[in-house]
Every structure is written in structure tokens, then in C-alpha cells.
């Protein structure tokens, strides 16, 4: 299964990256050009990346469910629900992509949980258990994925806050001493 972004999409991402760098360094021309390129390329990038996300999620579901159709269905339904829940009623294309990433990371956490649980299960005979180094590897990976999952959630929250026109609620407490 090919789960890589096609060459033309990668080129578009590289162009956006280069323009972003220039714009970040204060190049006004580059900022205008960035707006134009973003308008042109963003829909395709979001479409292609979302497609990879959807197919990747399906591959992960197959792994987690271990060919059990009922578990596959349940995971798919849970993922759809989660997707709708996080995306909200009117998500922007960028939000859709971020939500796809969040849901995929959640799925990977589930898959890693399954691996760890299988190893720690009391039903698994001692001779069927792997060494501590394997478990350590998996736990490290799990920790890394959890960190990325939380970071992705934070990014989504940040982008929503930045995009909304309403300023964040600020509480000021005044204490008069006299």
C-alpha cells in the first residue's frame, strides 16, 4: 500500500516551506506570493494528505482488530465519532487535516496499547513473553506517540484560538487595599 505523498504534492509543500521562510524573515513579496500559492495548492495538499490519512487509519485498524470484522467496525465507528466530535460543525480544511492526524495518532496509541497488553497479560505463558528490551522499546514508542498526540491536540486548540476573532477571556481581579 502506497502511503506516501506524491512527488507533485511534496514539491508544493517544499515551495510553501521556502516561501514561509522568506515571509518569516520579513519579505513582504514572499508573504503575498505565499497567499497566492497557498490558495492554489492547499486544497490538493489537504485532499491528498487526508486520503493518505484515511488509508493509513484503515491499515492500522486492520492491525489492531487482527482480522476481527466486529472490532474493525467498532473501531471505524469510534474513529468516525471521534473525528466528528473534534472537528466540530464547520471545520476548515486545515482543521480537517489536523483532526485526521489526531485521530491517527490515537489509533496508533491503541495499537501500541494492544501490544503492551498482550505482553503483560497474565494469560500469556511465561515462555511466550519477550524480553524486557522489547517492552522498553514499545513503551518508549508509546510515550513518543502520546507526546505527539497531545502536541497535535494543542496545535488544533491554538489554531482555533488564533483564527477566532473573539479575544480570549481574561479575568482581572482587583483588590483594593485601602
Amino acid at each position, binding site marked *: 500500500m502506497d*502511503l*506516501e*505523498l506524491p512527488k507533485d*504534492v511534496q514539491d508544493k*509543500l517544499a515551495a*510553501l*516551506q521556502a*516561501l*514561509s521562510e522568506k*515571509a*518569516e524573515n520579513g519579505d513582504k513579496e514572499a*508573504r503575498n506570493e*505565499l*497567499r497566492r*500559492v*497557498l490558495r492554489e495548492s*492547499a486544497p490538493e*495538499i*489537504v485532499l*491528498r*494528505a487526508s486520503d*493518505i*490519512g484515511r*488509508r*493509513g487509519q484503515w*491499515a*492500522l485498524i486492520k*492491525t489492531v482488530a487482527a482480522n476481527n470484522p466486529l472490532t474493525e467496525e467498532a473501531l471505524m465507528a469510534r474513529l468516525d465519532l471521534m473525528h466528528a466530535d473534534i472537528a466540530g460543525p464547520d471545520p476548515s480544511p*486545515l482543521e480537517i*487535516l*489536523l483532526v*485526521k*492526524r489526531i485521530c*491517527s*495518532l490515537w489509533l*496508533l496509541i491503541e*495499537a*501500541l496499547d494492544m*501490544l503492551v497488553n498482550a*505482553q503483560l497479560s497474565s494469560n500469556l505463558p511465561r*515462555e*511466550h*513473553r*519477550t*524480553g524486557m528490551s*522489547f517492552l522498553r*522499546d*514499545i513503551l518508549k514508542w508509546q510515550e513518543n506517540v502520546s507526546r*505527539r498526540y497531545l502536541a*497535535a491536540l494543542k*496545535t488544533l486548540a*491554538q*489554531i482555533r484560538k*488564533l*483564527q477566532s476573532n473573539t479575544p480570549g477571556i481574561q479575568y482581572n481581579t482587583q483588590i483594593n487595599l485601602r
Partner: protein
Amino acid sequence: MGWESRERGTRRYYTRSRWVDGQVVREYVGSGPAAEIAALEDEYKRQQREEEAAFWKEEKERLEARAAFLGELAEASEVLLRAHLLASGFHKHKGQWRRKCGS
């Protein structure tokens, strides 16, 4: 674990090592048919452990390969996010995105 022979004599003795309270303890099993059976048993267990380890390693590699798409998703969303914010008039200040004054 293995067979040993002493300097004098032709008999071989089977011994096995195991961990006890953080130390390797060598256990003397002996020679003769009982030792042969113990050696075969140990060899079988070792093979089984190796097969299990290979199975789990394969599972992990399979999962890694299937999760590789996350790198593509991360790259696409991060590049788009940055470009989108810059194009909307934001700039990064000490690691935080802020809206430019007047934009």
C-alpha cells in the same frame, strides 16, 4: 548452559546458568540420560524464546511500517499550518504565534 568436561575423565557434565537475585548462578545438572533430557528441554525452550522474539519483532516492524504515513500527515499539516498563519498575518514571537498589529 552447556556441556563441560573435566580435565581428567571422559564424561561430560551438563550445567545451566540462571539469574537469582541479580546474579548468575550455575546449576549442575549432571551427566547421563537425565542430563541429555535436560539439555534437550533447554534447547527447545531457547528455540521457542527465539521464535517468540522474532514474532514480536516482526509485529513491531509491521506496525512501524503501517504507522509511517503519520510522518507524511505531520509534515503536510505542519507546513500548511505555518504557511496559513503567516499568510493570515501572524508572526512567531519567542516561539508563540501572534497577530501582526494592524493586520
